[in-house]
């Protein structure tokens, strides 16, 4: 089966790649494009470690075929910091020690960014429900939730 030639936009950059029908967007990001920030946890849409934003919607990259992103816009963790300047969410994750092993962190950051773009002033309950599809086995979630709320406050002030 010939590979598909896909033209898309990733983190505002035009990108072209070749992929087979079976390859997921996560396979393409990590194995074809060397964008290894998105992690594979479960490969079944349960853990959220591969969260990316596809045309403004938060999705699991493991549940999207690579060929499906033809002509669309993908935002990944690699697009979050501007050079050496961390996104406020990244800075607050560091300040609150909202990560330990770090495997879930890119997914949490992308998911939290998608939340704050929709809802700049979420309640703690809203943060917890929005992030229910992101699993962390280290932190117990409290530090993550505090970091997101703190970042939301800082982003509203600035």
């Amino acid at each position, binding site marked *: *089966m010939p590979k*598909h030639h896909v033209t898309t936009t990733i983190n505002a950059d035009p990108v072209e790649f070749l992929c*087979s*029908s*079976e390859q*997921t967007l996560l396979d393409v990001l990590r194995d074809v494009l060397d964008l290894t920030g998105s992690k594979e946890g479960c*490969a*079944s*849409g*349960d853990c*959220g470690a591969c*969260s990316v934003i*596809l045309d403004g*919607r*938060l*999705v*699991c990259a*493991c*549940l*999207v*075929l690579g*060929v*499906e992103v*033809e002509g669309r816009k993908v935002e990944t963790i690699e697009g979050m910091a501007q050079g050496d300047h961390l996104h406020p969410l990244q800075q607050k994750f560091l300040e609150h020690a909202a990560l330990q092993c770090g495997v879930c962190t890119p997914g949490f950051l992308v*998911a939290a960014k*998608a*939340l704050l773009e929709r809802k700049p002033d979420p309640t703690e309950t809203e943060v917890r*429900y*929005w*992030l*229910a*599809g*992101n699993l962390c086995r280290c932190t117990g979630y409290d530090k993550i939730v505090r970091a997101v709320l703190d970042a939301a406050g800082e982003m509203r002030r600035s």
Partner: protein
Amino acid sequence: MDYRSPASVREALDLLAAHGGGAQVLAGGTDLLVKLRGGYVAPKVVVDVKAIPQLRGIGEDARGFRIGAATACAEIGEHAALAAAWPGVVEALQLIGSTQIQGRATLGGNLCNASPAADSVPAMIAAGATCEVAGPAGEREVPVESIVTGPGRISLAPGEFIVAFRLPTRRARSGDAYLRLIPRTEMDIAVVGAGVALALDEKGVCTHARVALGAVAPTPLLVAGAAAALIGTRVDDVAMAALAAAASAACKPIDDKRGTVAYRVKVAGVLARRAAHIALERAQAQ
């Protein structure tokens, strides 16, 4: 495996006809990609129906709402008029999976995956929703409850697929509701699900009711006896008790790690009654 993204219903039908059982319809992919990865299905071609305009978006006309079968649940949940008219249906579909899953999952997929525990299905059955089905012999419209025939099995003929769902215009003094029991607050599969839609006359007497249950039988159940317990009554405690008894009596559940047969039978009655209370309050508030 090949991947095709037809731009029209006709083109999709041709692809499905050409590949027979070797073709698999792809909508949101939240079930299909897991099955592909696990080796549970091995189609020769995946037919992505999301580029077909009739399968996308939400419209409103004289008959009610039309929801494209491949519209993502997140998009449906943001439709204010639909949420106001059919809050039970919208609450049910918003219970499917996480934020990430909501960004992709579709009503067509939730129905055709044919899980007995699918959350959107009892709510749609209670609402009296129908499906527009495209196939080699043309289009037909069928009730949602006619689609699932068993776990993972559906009544669609080879080469057919669901184009859209129809929700009727909300009746005067009516309301709907869906409740699901899971042992935690999020991200789990229904132990029992109950959807109720009802309507009242000017005097508060119930003139119309539909009650549907999920996760308590091989297929979602439309429980006529539970609806009959409400119709003609003021939906008082006696009627509610009869509804709960009829709901429990209709269950044919399995024992599994999520719940025993006895537990599911009991909870089905409780949930149906609570959902009926919410639907009643919504009807009275209208």
